[in-house]
């Protein structure tokens, strides 16, 4: 019975495994490339979107915010490989992200390695860590799996907080020593390069997840989500496939950590918290698990709200409201929480499900409905 909590990823056929049949069929494969191109030239635009961003699109503040959003879009897409596509509910994904953040930071700041070496080592290390811990955790299933992964992540959080040997900086975090970094990544004027880095990361993750989901392995993962026992009887080892998904997702998360560390310029224990995993879950469900763009959109939107709501809370519009409204509204978390709840109601199946939700509406508009007796 408790299994149902884990079976829960709403059934979505992987996009990649269903043939598209729309009128835009011929164009669709190119849309992501167009989107990527558009995103890549955003920094050349001085368009200001008042209310949405503080400054024009090419201002460092906006680019920084976008970069953070993009990284989390990628991180959520990677997490969805576990949750939405394989049906594994991990509560400890933050650990691999945190390993990426702290790994990079420590190797650069404390060990003085050049960035590319630090990044390579960190991603490898994060992947190996995921493989090792996954190998243990995957001996359990369902809620037990969720809790074991949570436990591992919690140990990670405790280790970071304990600050062994002054390595992590404990609750104060560890600012990144930029002296050894390529100049193009340092300084506010170079925020654009971080933006491009984040965009590249997102593109890679989306491509990888898309590719893997549409691969023979992806098909097996989709099967695992529904019925693990059946996969075994078909002659495939469920454990191996789950471990592959877990490791891959872990590696992608570690890579996200590397990029994030550069963008934020340091590590802080926020990234080790179980709340982060929970947020990942929220992002994925907000966007639509098991869909290609849902988790990406969910991640971007979540981070955007998370950052921008603080500004919203202290804006004049809110201050002008009567106190019983302005006080809760000036609490960013209040607004964020309310937004989730509303999102769950109004976009069941996530943002990606919006299209299908609207289909009946458009159909109804086209063909007048037969009056029913009820």
């Amino acid at each position, binding site marked *: 019975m408790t299994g149902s909590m884990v079976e829960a990823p709403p059934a979505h056929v992987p996009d990649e495994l269903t043939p598209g049949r729309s009128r835009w069929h011929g164009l669709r494969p190119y849309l992501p490339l167009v989107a990527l191109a558009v995103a890549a030239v955003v*920094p*050349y*635009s*001085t368009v200001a979107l008042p209310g949405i961003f*503080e*400054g*024009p699109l*090419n*201002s*460092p*503040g*906006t*680019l*920084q*915010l976008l970069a*953070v959003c993009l990284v989390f879009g990628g991180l959520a897409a990677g997490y969805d490989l576990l949750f939405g596509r394989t049906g594994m509910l991990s509560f400890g994904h933050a650990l691999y992200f945190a390993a990426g953040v702290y790994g990079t930071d420590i190797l650069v700041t404390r060990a003085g390695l050049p960035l590319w070496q630090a990044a390579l080592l960190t991603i490898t290390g994060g992947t190996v860590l995921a493989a090792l811990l996954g190998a243990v955790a995957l001996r359990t299933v369902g809620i037990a799996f969720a809790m074991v992964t949570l436990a591992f992540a919690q140990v990670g959080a*405790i280790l970071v*907080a*304990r*600050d062994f040997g*002054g390595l992590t*900086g*404990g*609750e*104060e*975090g*560890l*600012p*990144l*020593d*930029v*002296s050894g970094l390529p100049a193009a990544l*340092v*300084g*506010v*004027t*170079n*925020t*654009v390069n971080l933006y491009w880095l984040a965009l590249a990361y997102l593109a890679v993750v989306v491509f990888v997840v898309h590719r893997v989901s549409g691969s023979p392995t992806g098909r097996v993962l989709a099967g695992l989500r529904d019925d693990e026992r059946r996969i075994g009887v078909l002659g495939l080892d469920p454990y191996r496939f789950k471990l592959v998904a877990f490791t891959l997702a872990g590696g992608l998360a570690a890579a996200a950590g590397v990029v994030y560390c550069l963008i*934020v*310029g*340091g590590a*802080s*224990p*926020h990234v080790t918290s179980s709340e982060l995993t929970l947020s990942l879950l929220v992002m994925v469900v907000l966007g639509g698990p098991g869909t290609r763009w849902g988790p990406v959109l969910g991640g971007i939107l979540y981070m955007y709200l998370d*950052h921008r709501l*603080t*500004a919203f*809370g*202290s804006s004049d519009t809110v201050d002008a409201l009567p106190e019983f409204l302005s006080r809760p509204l*000036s*609490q*960013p*978390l209040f607004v964020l929480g309310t937004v989730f709840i509303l999102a769950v109601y109004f976009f069941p199946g996530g943002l990606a499900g919006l299209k299908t939700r609207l289909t009946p509406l458009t159909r109804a508009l086209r063909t007048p409905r037969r009056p029913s007796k009820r």
Partner: protein
Amino acid sequence: GSPQETASGGGDSTAPVKVGLVYSQSGPLASYGKQYIEGFRAGLDYATKGTGKVGDRKIELTEVDDAGDPAKAVSAAKDLIGKGTKILAGSTASGVALQVAPIAAQNKVLFISGPAATDAITGANKYTFRSGRQSYQDVVTAKSFIGDPTGKKVVVFAQDGAFGDANEAAVKAVIGGAGATVSSVRAPASATEFTPFASQIKAAKPDLLFVAWAGTTAPAMWQTLDQQGVLSATTVVTGLDIRASWPTFGAAGSKISFLSHYFDGASDTEAAKAAKAKIPGGTLDLFHPDGFAAAQMVVRAVTEGGDDVDKMIKALEGWSFDGVKGPMTVRADDHALIQPMFQAKLTGSGTDFTATAEKSLTGDEAAPPVTQMKG
């Protein structure tokens, strides 16, 4: 537009001076942030004699909430810098201060850290200053409670993590260095049941117990120390937190010797009077002086430096001024803020407590050792 363009801080002599304040308006440290900003406004008013202007130039404040999250603070700082802000201040949390400081250095803007107590901000880089006290100054104040430390036994009770580490190290250096034996009992910050630690402390039979504990579990901790008889067996010293927390000490409050950064009535300077008159409610609290001093430093920097950050730094280094707490000096070597500290007693019951100053230490008495400027 070009992707690498940032607004330049207009150099003309009547353009407003942009000052960015990044601090906690929401999140766990929201109350500290509130005091800080109230203090800042009062200080700005005081330093500009009510005009809000330096010469013909208006000081234009942009306030951003970081919710205690360094990532948000960094985003905000980059945004402000991108818009031409040359002066950043705020930083309620140490984690935030430590991440913003390098951003300031990379982009060559002035950064005046706020309530964040971490010692690591002192000497972090030449662009970074502080308007509040640091952990070391707390510890030096604690030392003043035991007279001659030689041969005395001191126990530090602190949370795991950087804050506890810093306090433990400071006690070892300050009190241990003066001849006392220092040992420590550490507890996880998440602990909710303190009997084991209280027992350990009791077993150690210290002459002085220094407690460095922050967070909502503090009252439970004090109650346990009291119940297990630690408070009556030895001198216990800790930092006095904001006024709202006083009632949570309960009966334990009167048995503790407090070192204090500031409380209402600890000083009676001109600045304190001005601050008192200006802030909502009229009662000063722990972090009002930090905001007040930050505003004084900003005005000094702009007056002397205009838009030139290097000149601002020159103007601040070695500068002495009269703050809310009394005379303060920005030490040129490492930008530590030399300031008076206080010993306090808490009396009262229920929800009604008052703090009274027992003694005050001069800035020099409480001064931290000089650290090497890192960048």
